[in-house]
Structures are given as structure tokens and as C-alpha cells.
């Protein structure tokens, strides 16, 4: 559960980078660069997911700690992305897909576990 905001921040920045022609070409070299409208949509969604990740950080850790963690995680994830873009751009799509999958999976599992854990003792999430 604590990793979901981290994954979300990563995905947000990938979406924002997809809205830039230079980086779209790095991530999807075989495709045609989408039109300006589509690029704008990428950027819009990127920022929306970024705000979602801020919201997740704050809702899990509280306002003060959440903002601090957000900025710290932002630094770290974008650093990793910068390095990936320079040296291993092909890994980025794979890692992003894995993160999307993991986020959904962890979310479902943690909530399903909570649903089943009424009176019986259950593992903490």
C-alpha cells in the first residue's frame, strides 16, 4: 500500500514525458508522433495523475509528512527516469506496465483482505 503513491508518481512523469516529442520517440520509436491534441491529452493526464499521487501521499501520511515524502520521492523517481531515458529507454515501458499492474493488484489485494478480515486475525497490510 505504501508503494502505490511511489508508482503513481513514476507513472505521472512518464505520461508527462510522453507528451514531449523527443521522449515519445525514445519510448515508442516505431510509432508516428501523435498530433498536438493527443500530446496535450498526455500532458493533461500526466498532471492529473501527479495530483492524484500528491493526494495519495497526503491521505496516507498526513499533510505535512505527505508533502515532504512527495517531494523526496519526486526527486528520486525522476532521477531514476532520467538515467533510464539516457541509458535504457526500452526498460521504461516495461517498468511502467509493471507498476500499473502492481498498483492495481496491491490495491485490490489490500482491500479484499480488509473485507475478509472482520473478526479473524489477519496479517496487517
Amino acid at each position, binding site marked *: 500500500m505504501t508503494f502505490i503513491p511511489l508508482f503513481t508518481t513514476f507513472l505521472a512523469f512518464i505520461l508527462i514525458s510522453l507528451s514531449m516529442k523527443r521522449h515519445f520517440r525514445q519510448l515508442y520509436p516505431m510509432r508516428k508522433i501523435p498530433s498536438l491534441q493527443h500530446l496535450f491529452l498526455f500532458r493533461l493526464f500526466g498532471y492529473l495523475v501527479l495530483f492524484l499521487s500528491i493526494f495519495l501521499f497526503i491521505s496516507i501520511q498526513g499533510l*505535512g509528512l505527505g508533502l515532504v515524502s512527495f517531494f523526496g520521492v519526486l*526527486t528520486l523517481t525522476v532521477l531514476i*527516469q532520467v538515467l533510464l531515458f539516457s541509458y535504457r529507454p526500452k526498460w521504461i515501458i516495461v517498468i511502467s506496465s509493471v507498476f500499473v499492474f502492481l498498483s492495481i493488484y496491491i490495491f485490490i489485494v489490500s482491500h479484499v483482505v480488509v473485507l475478509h478480515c472482520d473478526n479473524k486475525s489477519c496479517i496487517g497490510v
Partner: protein
Amino acid sequence: MSFVSILVEAGEVILITPGQGRFRQSMLWLHTWTGIVFAIVLYFIFITGSIGYFQNEITYWMEPETPLNDKSVEQKDLLNVAEQRLKQVAADSTEWWVDFPIGRQYSLMISWLENSINQDGSNEEIWHEEILDYDTGKPVNVRDTGGGATLYAMHYSLHYLPNIVAYWLVSFCSMFMFVGLITGIIIHKQIFKDFFTFRSAKKQHSWRDLHTVLSVLPLPFHLMMTYSGLLFFVTMSMPSIIGASYGFGDENLDRYYDDVYLEDIVQQDAAGIKATSIDFSDIFSDITKHIGSNNIDYIGIENRGDINAYIEVSKSGYDGLSDSETYIFHGVTGQFQSVVVSNESTSMAKAFYDTLFVLHEGKFSDYSVRWLYFISGLMGAGMIASGMILWATKRRERSNKKGISHQGLINVERLNIGIIVGLPTSIAIYFWLNRLLPKNFEARSDWEINGLFFTWSLLLVYPFLASFKYNTKQIWTHQLMVASLVYGLLPLINYFTTNVHLGITLSNGHWVLAGFDLFMLLCSFVFGLCAVKLSNSPPVVATYNSAIKLNKHEKPLNKIVSKA
């Protein structure tokens, strides 16, 4: 006519958006020159500051005699052990304190105040501290070391200088750090377009891209740190603000502090009437009712032996961004008296200051956020280092084209090596000395630090001497290899000199101590990787030849030609 043209020029400068024209160029000049001039102090500040986030852990590693005790011991038993010892050695003392091994404290420590009368009748107060082994209840003789705290203190009070001088120097340099940040933002035209850009292959742009990445990515961190760092010194660097309302001088400053800082704990003076103080263990169950079990950070009694004795119990953890509550109990009856929530703000200004203070020091942070702070700090140090290298690289390229190079550039190139690689190496030597200096050597904590600075001075001088035989790239490789060696051998030295080496700490799950050794190995690997990559990189274009190649009509200038 000329007056109109002056107006037009002025208008141009004012109205043209920042990012174009002369404004941007002058900001670039400011950024470049304040950057390189203050780089050494700022690099030092960033490195020691980043280290400071783990000062408790570093001190723990540097005091290997600290018992590796079982973490699951109940605080009730720890309190019993501590109290037994205190009764043994400090029966007459007026103040007792017990620090529990909770959170980022790694030992059970007792301290007490000894009041003695000097020969001339004056009162002297001596503080005693002991780290206890909670299996035997006996004190452990821990080696005298500066630990991580000394490294951290150098972050704001440098070393060897009187405190005030150091504070002024650090404050002054922080101001230029702030100037560097703001000018850096102004001159960075494509801050969003180039957000993810790092052109590793292109020689000309690589150092600039690295410098940009390391500045932009942790930008919130840098801005917050620099601004809050400046604020720490504000009562010293801007005394007129307080002076205008309270007057100048120490007495008036004290009045100001009295007004701003609420007295946290109600200070009761000793009444002079003797009364037996209650034991900590007697009120332990009462404490547990208030703060839960195994939650005590520290417990202490003041005015012990007097009727006005009071016991302070601090709850572990943080309440938002400030310290958690302190509970006061009566020292004779054991009755619960009050709760004090520390750091209550008297005003908006103080709340603002407190928030920045807590953010700068990251006191509230557990391990994960602490690592984020640490990494951001190292990125800041990297920002300064890459800036220094960028400064030298750009000017080297220009001077290669022109065929001459200034002594100033040569000096900076050589100093860069000693500063950027030399400082981490000397810090590793500090850790070496902690293990190698004899335990009973009296001034060992002083000489650990002297060793750090002595090594650093050697490493600063080495490039100048070695440049008679080697070129700059080779000297970089030398120092990087030395750094790699010094860090890599540290766990080995740990193995031979103590019994808290990796073999034991890894197998017993003492992650803090193991983490230190593992991080040393990581540093060694990184330096080694840099050294190998640098030595394998294509040789620098033969600048010696191009440097002396002059056009036919040019006379050889009487300037120093670099061999780099």
C-alpha cells in the same frame, strides 16, 4: 537624444522578460562566478549536512563497544537496570536521566548531575554519562569519539574556527548559494522541456545536463534547505531587526528569546526541604496508562531529594512535525501533574520559522524519508561538484581553441580533484582512524578530526605535485582509485579491529551497523566505477600540441601552457 536612448535601453532591460538579452547574460555571469568562488565551502556544507541525517547511526558505528543487546527487552526491565545503577553511583545526585534504546537511539544511557564544591567555595556541576549493558547492568567503556555529531557540527560551525567566524562564513556562503539557485532558475530556459534530458554521449553538453538534472530534480529540497539554512543565522546576520525593538546586546537578545520561546517545562526550583524521591519503577504502570507500553523516549527527575522534585517522561515519536508530549509527575508522591506539548508556537512568524527548522533538520523523519533527504543532499553536493567541473571544462575548451591557458584555470582544475574526491576520502580516513587509534589515547576524538583535515590537505596538494608527471585525467583516476580503496578496506579494518563487523552484524540482523559497512562498500564501488570508466574513456584531444600551435604571424605569448 541620448537621454531618450538611455531611457529606451533602461526600458529594454526592465521590460524584456527574464530569459532574454542582457538580464539573462548577467544572471549567467553571476551564477558562474558566485558558483565557482564559493563551491568549496558549499560542497563541504552539503556533504557534511547529508552525513548529518545519519549522525546517530554513524555514532553508533563509531562506538563499537555499545552493547548489541536484545531489542525485545521490555522498557520496565530496562528501567530497573538503569535505576539500580543510578542508585549505585548517583545516590546523592539532584538530577537523573535515563535514555531508552528506542527509535534512533541505540543504547541505554544514564546520566546524572554531580554537584561539588570547589576549593574556593564555588559550586561546580559535573555531568556524568554511562552506557549500560542491560544484561549485566554494568557500564560499558565506550571509546571517546566525535562520532557523527562532530561531522554534522562541521556543517554549520566548520572546524578550527571560532564559532562566530564560522557562522558568518557559512551564512555568507549560504546567501550566495541562494543567489546561485535563483540565477540558475532564471538562466535555465527550458526548465520543463529539458526536464528529463541527460545527454550522456555528447561531451559538450553532458556536464551541463548533469548539473541541470542534479539541480532541477531536487529543486524544492535545495530551495527549502538554503532558505531555512539562512534563517537559522538570522538573529546573527540581521541583528537590527531585534535591535530596533529590544535594543542591541546580549541582555536584550535574551529578553527577546524569553518572549518568543514559551517555557516548555514548568521549572520549579528546589525548595530546600528534603524529601525522599519516588522511584521511577513505582510510577511505571502509571506512565504506561498515559503513553502506552514501551513508548518512553527518556525519563528524568529534577530536584531529586527535594520536596519540589518532578519527573519528566517524554513520549517517543512525533506529533505532526514537532516533538511528542512530555508528561510531568510529582517527584515525591508520584502523582501525574500535567502534559506539555512542546514547540507550541506563540506567533505566525515563529510557526513559520519552526516549520522550516523542522523541515531542514528532518527530525520527524523515519528511515525512509531520511534516506530521501540523504539522497537529495548528495544530489546537491553533486550539483556543486558538476558545476565546478563544468566551469573548468568550458574554460578548458575555450582556452584550447585559443591556444593559451591561464594559471587560474589550471589551479581550479587541480583544486577540483582535491575538493570533489578528496573530501569523501578524508571522511573515510576519519572512520579509519576511529578504528585504528588506540582506545585509551586521550585526545583521540581530536585526532580523528585532525586526521580528516590533514588527509584532505594532502589530497588538495597532491594534484599540484603530480601534475609534473601526470595529466589531469590521470590525477582524477588516481584520486578516485584511492577513494575506492579507502572505502573498500574499511569493512575489512572493521573485521580486524572489532567484533561488530559484517560477518556478525549481517547474520544477527543488526541492520544499522551492517548498513554502514554496506554503504561503505557501495561508495567504494561507485568511486571504482568512476575511476575505471574515466581511465577507459578516449584520451583528451592532444591539447599540448594544439595549445602551442600558433598562427604564423603570432608571436609566442608569454603565458603558461597547460599540459593537461
